[in-house]
């Protein structure tokens, strides 16, 4: 068996932090290669939530008593961690906690979009967006007849930036994925942000697939808005993050109405609360914010630089092993050794259907995703209905990859 030249992370020790990864399925240890859909949680995240529920749960923000104050403190600490992770300049005001990042993007289209976009106004997306960053805009298009333009994907699986200035001309808003959940490409945001700002547009990036894997600095990137989601970085389900510059948030009308987001309510009118609570209606995801904070601490303790290095090495290893073992394999993404390439590996194995691949892999306790990965326009661009997708994270190693390879050999045996 080949082995990684650089052992950047102590993966055995890391695996031990994740209860699910020691689970045995029909005699085999689970090999989890679907973290791009949702990552596993370290025990520390479960402990943080259990400790909260067991010692200090209460509704937040208005309780005078000690456990309610402590609940509020822990909830708000999750917010601060969410901001720290992306170097948000002003986390206590600019980080909005949502139920997932999909809600975050809808918040933007429903509030900023409906306030600022009229018929014919231009929004720029890319062909490689996740549905979460397309459908909200399509809904706005149906309501407002805005124009949506798309940056195309080249045959090298990168965005075509050759006509960037032309595409963003007169645009009011540009929203692009920071890392593709299908191709594994990491977007070169700098030229896009610069062009968008030259055109006078705001720029949002979808960090769902980037934040768990690479250090991110929204200030250095000069972004205006940014989103990511808790469950992909080992946090709980039920929490997403929207960051935006305070002046943008201040100017946005509220989104959901109800408790917490108000200042005063009368029978015929209401006024809104300060940031960030203006956008957090109802009882917030309290335990989820605390779990997210614990996940972020876990990430920080290991270090995103080291995680990125580990993933880069393991991605190259995987790509090499796949192509050397299966000459017929088609990989939808940059090759081994490429820059700006994450650990998401989409492929087709001859004409064996991805469903069949994933099903047989499951028999080997190897978990991969098969389907359109919520990116149907990109699937059409690639000329496929579905791909098989293996995605790597800090707890994966070359043993996992070798198990994948063996299982794929079995797939071929079965279907050819």
């Amino acid at each position: 068996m080949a082995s990684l030249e650089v052992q950047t992370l102590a993966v055995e020790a890391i695996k031990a932090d994740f209860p699910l990864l020691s689970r045995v399925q029909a005699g085999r240890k689970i090999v989890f290669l679907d973290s791009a859909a949702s990552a596993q949680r370290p025990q520390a995240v479960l402990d943080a939530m259990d400790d909260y529920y067991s010692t200090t749960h209460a509704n937040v923000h208005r309780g005078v008593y000690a456990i309610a104050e402590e609940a509020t403190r822990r909830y708000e600490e999750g917010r601060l961690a969410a901001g720290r992770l992306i170097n948000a300049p002003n986390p206590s005001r600019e980080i909005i906690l949502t139920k997932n990042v999909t809600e975050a993007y809808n918040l933007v289209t429903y509030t900023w979009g409906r306030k600022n976009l009229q018929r014919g106004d231009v929004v720029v997306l890319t062909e490689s967006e996740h549905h979460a960053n397309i459908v909200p805009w399509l809904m706005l298009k149906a309501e407002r007849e805005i124009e949506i333009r798309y940056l195309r994907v080249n045959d090298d699986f990168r965005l075509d930036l050759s006509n960037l200035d032309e595409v963003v001309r007169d645009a009011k808003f540009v929203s692009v994925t920071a890392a593709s959940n299908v191709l594994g490409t990491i977007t070169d945001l700098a030229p896009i942000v610069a062009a968008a700002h030259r055109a006078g547009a705001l720029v949002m990036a979808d960090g769902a697939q980037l934040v768990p894997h690479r250090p991110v600095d929204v200030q250095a990137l000069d972004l205006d808005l940014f989103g990511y989601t808790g469950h992909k970085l080992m946090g709980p389900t039920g929490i997403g993050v929207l960051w935006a510059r305070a002046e943008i948030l201040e100017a946005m009308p509220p989104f959901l109405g109800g408790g917490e987001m108000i200042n005063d309510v009368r029978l015929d009118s209401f006024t809104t609360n300060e940031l960030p609570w203006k956008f957090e209606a109802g009882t917030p995801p309290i335990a989820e914010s605390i779990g997210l904070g614990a996940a972020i601490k876990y990430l920080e303790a290991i270090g995103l630089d080291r995680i990125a290095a580990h993933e880069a090495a393991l991605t190259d290893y995987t790509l090499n092993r796949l192509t050397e073992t299966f000459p017929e394999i088609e990989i939808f993404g940059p090759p081994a050794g490429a820059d700006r390439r994450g650990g998401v590996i989409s492929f087709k194995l001859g004409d064996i259907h991805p469903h069949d691949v994933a099903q047989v892999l499951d028999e080997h306790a190897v978990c991969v995703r098969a389907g359109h990965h919520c990116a149907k326009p990109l699937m059409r661009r690639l000329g496929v209905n579905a791909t098989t997708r293996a995605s790597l994270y800090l707890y994966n190693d070359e043993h996992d990859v070798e198990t994948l390879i063996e299982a794929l050999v079995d797939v071929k045996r079965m279907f050819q």
Partner: protein
Amino acid sequence: MAGLEDLYREIILDHYRSPRNRGELTTPPAIRVEGFNPLCGDEIVLYLEVADDIVTDVKISGQGCSISQSSASMMSAAIKGKSVVEVRALIRSFKAMMSIHEATLGEEGVEEIGPIDPDSFGELAALQGVVKFPVRIKCATLSWNTLVQALEEAATA
């Protein structure tokens, strides 16, 4: 846990590797209906020729996983030459077989039909194992839903 052998019976793989009635028919007289499973992107094109309430010919093209492909292939073999009434009865039984799992998931209003006699299904009974793999049920029923649509079009044509 259900094993793979429940899903990929030999007969299923056989239909997958050597699909029956693959191809196209001229329309008209044939009816052409497309079926699409947006969740996995599988698509099927069904050509159906009905004369005097008998399915006189059927052809299938499109692409999909082994389950959707073999289900379509088996279906085509099972309905060819049958009367529309017989075909409708077969569809009902097949869907009932496939809805067992959905029923336990709480799908209401599932028609109560007695215990299914696998013998009456012939080869199709091999697909029974699919119910243990809920996400694959839609693969198995894709061609059948398309057939329902084709029969409706045939009735109104």
